[in-house]
C-alpha cells in the first residue's frame, strides 16, 4: 500500500464519520454507554481486588512451638516448614518479641501485661506466609502434623469465610464484566452494521470499479477504530473526574484504616488505557465483522 493510499484511507474514514453524522453519533454513543458501565465496574472491581489482596496478604500462619523444643529441634522444624510447597516465608519470633507485640497491640491497657515480662507464658512462634494466600489453610493443616508444633493459628473459620467471600465477589465481578463486554460488542456491531448496510451501495460500487477487498476494508477498519476511541473519550473524562473527587473525599473525610482506595495517579491512567483499548477493540471488531458480509469472502 502506498503512502497516498494510506492517507486516503485515513482521510476517507474521517470524512465518512462526518458524512454519516447521526450514525457516527449512534455508534459512538453505544460505545460510550457501554464503556461507562464497564469503566465503573472496573473501578469497583479493581478496588475490591486491591482490598482483597491486601487482606489476603495479611493472612499469616502463627506456628506456636512446643516449650520443650531446643534450638536444634526448632531449626529442624523450620526446615520442615520451609520444605512444604508454596511456603513463601518463615519468620522466627521469640516469645519476648511476641509479648512486646501483644503489649503494643493492647494499647493503654497493654501495660498490665508488663507483669508477664518476668515469667513469659507465651511460646516462641514461626510466622509463616503462603505464596498464594488461598493455600494458607492447606499449609496450616500440614504444619499441624509436624513434631514440636504446639498449636497452629491462622484465624480458623474466619479466613475460610473471607476467602470464600472474596472468591465469590471476584467471580461475580468477572462474569458481569464479561457479560457487559459481550453485550457491548453485539450492540456496537449491530449499530455499525446499520451504518454499513446504509453504505452497501458504496461497497458495491467499490467492487465494481476494481477495489480489492483489502482496500475496501481499510476505511471501515479505521472508522471502527475512530468510533471506538471517540466513544471512549467521554467515559474516561467522566470517570476521571468522579474518581478523583471520590478519592479526595474518601482520603480526607472517611478514610477507614483497613480499606484504602487505589490512588488516582497510576490507577486512572491504567483504567483510561484499558477503556481506550476496549473501545478501539470493539469498534474495529464491530466494523470489520459487519463489512465482511458485503465482501462475499
Amino acid at each position, binding site marked *: *500500500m*502506498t503512502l*497516498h*493510499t494510506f492517507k*486516503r484511507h485515513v482521510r476517507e474514514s474521517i470524512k465518512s464519520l462526518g*458524512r454519516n453524522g447521526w450514525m457516527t453519533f449512534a455508534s459512538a454513543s453505544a460505545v460510550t454507554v457501554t464503556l461507562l458501565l464497564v469503566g465503573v465496574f472496573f473501578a469497583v472491581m479493581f478496588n475490591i481486588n486491591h482490598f482483597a489482596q491486601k487482606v489476603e496478604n495479611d493472612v499469616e500462619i502463627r506456628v506456636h512451638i512446643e516449650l520443650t523444643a531446643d534450638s536444634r529441634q526448632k531449626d529442624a522444624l523450620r526446615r520442615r516448614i520451609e520444605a512444604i510447597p508454596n511456603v513463601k516465608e518463615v519468620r522466627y519470633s521469640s516469645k519476648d518479641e511476641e509479648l512486646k507485640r501483644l503489649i503494643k497491640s493492647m494499647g493503654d491497657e497493654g501495660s498490665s501485661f508488663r507483669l508477664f515480662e518476668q515469667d513469659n507464658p507465651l511460646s516462641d512462634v514461626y510466622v509463616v506466609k503462603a505464596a498464594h494466600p488461598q493455600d494458607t489453610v492447606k499449609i496450616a493443616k500440614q504444619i499441624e502434623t509436624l513434631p514440636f508444633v504446639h498449636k497452629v493459628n491462622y484465624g480458623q473459620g474466619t479466613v475460610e469465610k473471607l476467602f470464600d467471600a472474596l472468591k465469590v465477589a471476584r467471580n461475580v465481578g468477572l462474569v458481569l464484566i464479561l457479560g457487559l463486554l459481550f453485550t457491548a460488542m453485539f450492540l456496537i456491531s449491530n449499530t455499525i452494521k446499520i451504518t454499513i448496510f446504509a453504505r452497501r*451501495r*458504496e461497497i*458495491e*460500487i*467499490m*467492487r*465494481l*470499479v*476494481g*477495489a*480489492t*477487498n483489502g*482496500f475496501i476494508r481499510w476505511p471501515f477498519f479505521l472508522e471502527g477504530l475512530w468510533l471506538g476511541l471517540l466513544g471512549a473519550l467521554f467515559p474516561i473524562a467522566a470517570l476521571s473526574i468522579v474518581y478523583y473527587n471520590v478519592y479526595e473525599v474518601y482520603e480526607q473525610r472517611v478514610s477507614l484504616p483497613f480499606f484504602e482506595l487505589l490512588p488516582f495517579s497510576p490507577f486512572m491512567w491504567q483504567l483510561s488505557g484499558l477503556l481506550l483499548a476496549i473501545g478501539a477493540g470493539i469498534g474495529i471488531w464491530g466494523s470489520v465483522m459487519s463489512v465482511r458480509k458485503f465482501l*462475499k*469472502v
Partner: protein
Amino acid sequence: MIEMQDVYKTYPNGVVALNGINVRIKQGEFVYVVGPSGAGKSTFIKMMYREEKPTSGNIMVNGVNLAKLKDSKVPLLRRHIGVVFQDFKLLPKLNVYENVAFALEVIEESPKVIRKKVMEVLDLVGLKHKIRSYPNELSGGEQQRVSIARSIVNSPKIVIADEPTGNLDPETSWGIVELFEKINDRGTTIVMATHNKEIVNATRRRVIAIENGKIVRDEAKGEYGYDASYV
C-alpha cells in the same frame, strides 16, 4: 476481445438463464444485446465482468478465462472493464469529480495522474463545468454521463452497459448513445443491452438477440426486431 464457448448458467433456484451461448465479440466492436425481459440479457452481460460465474463453459475476456478466475483476481479484471448501469450507481455524498476520481483512487493511482485523467474524461462527457455538483443536483442524463466518465477513466478496453438509457427520455438517450459512439471511435469495445428500438434501428450496429437463454439472432447491421409495446 470477448469470447463465450458453450456457456450455461443455472441459478441456485433452478432458473436456467443461459442455455448454451457461443459468441465472439472483437476488439473495437459496438454490439447491442436485445431480447424480451427475463430472456437472459442481464445474465449474459453480468458474465462478462464476472458478476456471475457460468455453471459450465468458458468465457475469455482480454485473454483471461473468467470461468477459472479466482475471486481474489476479480478486482484486477474489473479495472480493465468499464460498467454502466440503468440506475447510474453514483455515490450520492460525493461530487462529480470525486465520483469519477473514485475509480482511480481504488487502483491506487497518484493524485497528479488522477486529477489529469478525471479532467480529461469530464471534458469528454461534457461536464467539466459541473465538477463540484452532487448527483442530486444533476439531471438523469448528466448523472449517466458521470457514470460513463467513471467507467472509462482508467481507459478500459471494454465498456459494458446494462440498459444505460432505461431511465432517460428519448432526447437524452440519444446524447448518451452518441457519447458511447465517441468512446467506441477511440477503439473501445462497447456491449450495450437495451430496449430502445429507435436507437438500435437508427444506428445499425451489430445486434445479438437473446431469447430463453439462447442467441436467436446475430446480425452485423441488425434491427431491434421486436415491437416496442412491452418496453
